[in-house]
């Protein structure tokens, strides 16, 4: 006995399905002349509302929204690093090797200064241990300046300029995060490093995404021997322990390669395993979606297989894919950092956060130059931000989430 009132749903989120159902029962499946455009329009409406819903839910997730802003800011660093960094990447001043972070001062003998300044940094040698150490020379102040002329650089490699967002007048130094063994400003190097570290995650994920999606779709849709082959290949690839595999492959990159080639090589290495997970997910989803009615309905309506795939199956799965890519980025960034740290990944002159950290490989560094570890703060921040954003996206993408 079918009683109409059972079909009323409780939650608004279900409405999308309901409309779908109703439209279908209202128009019996077209047999000869398919009303394909109407069908497509429906799909569009459906997906649009799905994105809209996702966005509304995501907005409520405060932590995730905060995290996306952090990510946005970090990528801002990466894009405009030449301008944002106080010094160019290769600028060094050996007189200031291992200088500790300079403090920004608001107070001096003569009271409060609303605009911060730094004191001149004076290097000295300890009379007995002969260790070099730095002291502030309080007689000389350098106020922090915005948009100053400093060391020249080429912006995006396009044009020459010497404008920096932050800096001090000539003669002073601005090492807010200290310097490394060659007297290079850590902050500037970290900002430059963002460009490499952050893009390697993105490029790697894009690569695994393309691989995973294509292979997963082929495997799920064609089935048969294609599917079999792909599944076996994935199984074998997954039998490799990821870190030793990464290490072996990175070690195999020839030393004669140019920085760009190494960069691409490492990205490929990192995405070599990542795609398998996505391919499996896509395949599973397609297998289950294939059974569902709307694909059959479209097939009855005469749409071609590929058309169905792109117009029907993928949109309804896209949100999941986006979530899994977001959550894959941090793994890649950590992987790059670890490989570079071991000396197997990127090598100088390419500067990534991992490369920077290679200098801080021993306990001495932690004890005497802890500021050399500051890149790791950026790594953690990035990874956290991606994880939080991914979590928020996942909750938003799941219509049945609590």
């Amino acid at each position, binding site marked *: *006995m079918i*009683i*109409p*009132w*059972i079909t*009323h*749903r*409780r939650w*608004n989120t279900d409405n999308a399905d309901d409309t779908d159902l109703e439209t279908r029962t209202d128009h019996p499946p077209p047999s000869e002349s398919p009303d394909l455009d109407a069908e497509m329009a429906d799909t569009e409406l459906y997906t649009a509302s799905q994105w809209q819903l996702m966005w509304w839910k995501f907005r409520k997730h405060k932590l995730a929204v905060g995290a996306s802003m952090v990510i946005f800011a970090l990528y801002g660093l990466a894009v405009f690093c030449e301008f944002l960094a106080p010094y160019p990447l290769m600028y060094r001043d050996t007189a200031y090797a291992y200088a500790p972070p300079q403090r920004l001062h608001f107070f001096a003998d003569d009271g409060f200064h609303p605009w911060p300044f730094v004191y001149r940094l004076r290097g000295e040698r300890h009379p007995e241990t002969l260790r070099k150490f730095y002291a502030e020379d309080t007689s000389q102040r350098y106020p922090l300046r915005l948009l100053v002329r400093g060391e020249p650089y080429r912006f995006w490699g396009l044009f020459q300029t010497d404008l920096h967002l932050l800096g001090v007048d000539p003669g002073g130094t601005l090492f807010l995060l200290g310097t490394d063994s060659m007297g290079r400003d850590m902050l500037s190097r970290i900002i430059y490093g963002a460009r490499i570290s952050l893009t390697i995650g993105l490029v790697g994920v894009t690569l695994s995404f393309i691989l995973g999606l294509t292979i997963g779709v082929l495997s799920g849709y064609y089935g048969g021997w294609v599917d079999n082959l792909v599944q076996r290949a994935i199984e074998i690839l997954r039998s490799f322990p990821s870190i030793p595999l990464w290490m072996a492959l990175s070690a195999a990159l020839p030393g004669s390669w140019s920085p760009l080639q190494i960069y691409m090589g490492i990205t490929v290495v990192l995405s070599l395993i990542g795609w398998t997970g996505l391919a499996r997910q896509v395949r599973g989803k397609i297998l289950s979606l294939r059974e569902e009615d709307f694909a059959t309905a479209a097939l009855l309506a005469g749409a071609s297989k590929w058309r169905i795939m792109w117009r029907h199956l993928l949109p309804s799965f896209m949100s999941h894919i986006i979530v899994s890519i977001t959550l894959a980025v941090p793994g890649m960034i950590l992987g790059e950092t670890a490989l570079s740290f071991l000396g197997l990944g990127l090598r100088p002159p390419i500067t990534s956060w991992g490369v920077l950290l290679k200098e801080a490989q021993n306990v001495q560094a932690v004890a005497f130059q802890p500021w050399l570890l500051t890149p790791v703060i950026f790594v953690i921040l990035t990874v956290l931000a991606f994880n939080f954003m991914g979590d928020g996206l996942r909750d938003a993408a799941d219509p049945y989430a609590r």
Partner: protein
Amino acid sequence: MAPLLSIDNLRTYFFLDEGTVRAVDGVHLEIPQGKTVAIVGESGCGKSVTAFSILRLISPPGQIVSGQIVLHGEGNDVILTDLEDEGTAIRQIRGKEISMIFQEPMTSLSPVHAVGDQIMEAVRLHTQMKKSEAKAHAIRMMERVGIPNAPARFNQYPHEMSGGLRQRAIIAMALSCQPSLLIADEPTTALDVTIQAQILELMRDLQAEFGMSILLITHDLGIVAEMADRVAVMYLGRIVEEANVEQIFTQPQHPYTRALLQSIPGRGVQPGGRLKVIAGSVPDPFQRISGCPFHPRCEEAIPEMCDQGDPPGSVEILPRQRTACMVRREYHTSLR
């Protein structure tokens, strides 16, 4: 006859971020000894929440905010709503005095424990029986509910059984301690029609044998006609009409009850005619409606009377038939 259980002005709310869901909002109900009371109503009207409230199974964000539920035993009454949360007292009533079976036989049993063990657990919790006795008792119960080859089935896992067998096992579990009240929340919705009939017949037989009361929650007016002695029609957290089963079917008073009846095939509808669908849809659960909660969908609603003030109380407008409708009340008082 003395009631076994009485529910008085029960209100159970869910306090969610989006707002408060007044899932049960002032329910009065009595369950007589040895009889079957059915609760019917649209999905989401609060039937299950009422049942959970009786067993004190509501957990945060849900809360019983007011009202009393009393279990009348021999000589002593237990006020269920006053018992400590998850304390010993309520746990000794669950499964022993009052048992409950759920809608989904597929998921009602733990997938990683043998079915027999799950039945036995109830026995061991509420009686002094030793393990071997409890096992024998569980097997007897399984045989009683018609599970063939019970000793072998004892060690099987839920997924090795069909839906019908599982629901029988769940009934065996619920009845293993001979409760005085069995709450059955849509016990047959997930089963196919022939199995449905068997399970219902089993429940009737067992009721005759053990003499327990049944609170039957269902969507299906056919089942109501077959099983119930009394019927309570629920709408948006309230009972809008309560009467004996014949009265409900022959002289429904509340417009909602009548709409429900008209929406089933074969009743009040000419063959080939169209089924009537209740106009509008269930309002969103966070909303509060002034006046009679049903008035926006009611064909008989009278403006300025039904849409204002507090919801109408339930009044016995015909003998043994209580209805919460202002229009009907006016009509019957004018007749007198």
